[in-house]
């Protein structure tokens, strides 16, 4: 029976097919995994902001929403307390009518004083430098 050169060649090397299968499996296992890792790395690099958003914020969005609401409440309360006069805080004002009369008088006095513009204080004269002899004497005394 005659064969083509191709058949002859393949028959002569068919005994290594098992080893070739093993090589194929190994190469595919290692190289395709490595290629997948490389692809994943590239994808991470390309979509880093999106991934950060998804993994850090979007995954625990309820927690973040709760925390933001809590902070908003804290800030609102803080602002409200700043705007309120001290008298309104907790109704702790037990001041007597005498105190209120005194406060009113003080207020009137302040208003009167406010009408008269206070004179500006005269500029302080710049002290002239002391003579060197004085300084030397002073140093001597110190020694």
């Amino acid at each position: 029976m005659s064969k083509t050169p191709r058949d002859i060649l393949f028959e002569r090397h068919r005994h290594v097919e098992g080893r070739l299968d093993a090589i194929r499996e190994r190469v595919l296992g290692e190289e395709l995994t490595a290629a997948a890792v490389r692809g994943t790395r590239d994808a991470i690099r390309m979509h880093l902001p999106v991934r950060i958003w998804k993994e850090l914020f979007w995954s625990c969005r309820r927690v973040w929403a709760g925390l933001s609401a809590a902070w908003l409440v804290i800030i609102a309360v803080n602002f409200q307390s700043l705007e309120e006069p001290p008298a309104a805080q907790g109704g702790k004002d037990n001041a007597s009518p005498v105190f209120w009369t005194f406060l009113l008088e003080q207020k009137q006095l302040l208003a009167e004083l406010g009408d008269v513009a206070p004179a500006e204080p005269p500029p302080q004269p710049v002290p002239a430098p002391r003579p060197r002899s004085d300084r030397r004497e002073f140093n001597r005394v110190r020694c």
Partner: protein
Amino acid sequence: MLAVAESKELPVREAKAGDPEAWSRLFQRYQLPLYSYVFELVRDEQASLDIVQETFINAVRHVGGLRDDEKFGSWLFGIAHQKCIQRWRKPPREESIGVEELELVPDDEPGPCDWLVSKEQEEQFMNRLNQLPPPQRSVLLLHFVEDFSLEEIAGVIGTAIGTVKSRLHYAKRSLRKIIEKART
């Protein structure tokens, strides 16, 4: 033309997309032809297996550079051929072919399926094949194993089509003598 018909059905596009099943099919299809080609050039089993492995690794890593999917086979053999040359350390010296010699080469040469070797001739045929100078052996093996066209063989070994044609002609003539001698 077995190689051409099969290559159209090969899942090269899927392999490019990283499909392991496609790669497995491709390597299964080419592992034995590739090994046969490499072994007949380097004549060492372990070295041949190493070259096949390195060829597969390179194929997976650089398949993105393959422009024409239908040329996957010759591209793969091209990688293996380069690995063989690296093994030999020194690339085989190119034979200078004269214009007169090229003109003598006929165009209507028989295809690989037209070659029929009887059981008795097999050993003699293989011995003669191994005695051929590596450049001629390489061209003839690519012709026999995958039935690559002259253009594809030229791409695999990196030479001019005219050189491939001439080498193939002389290698075939040399082997045909054995078959004809056995017949007479």
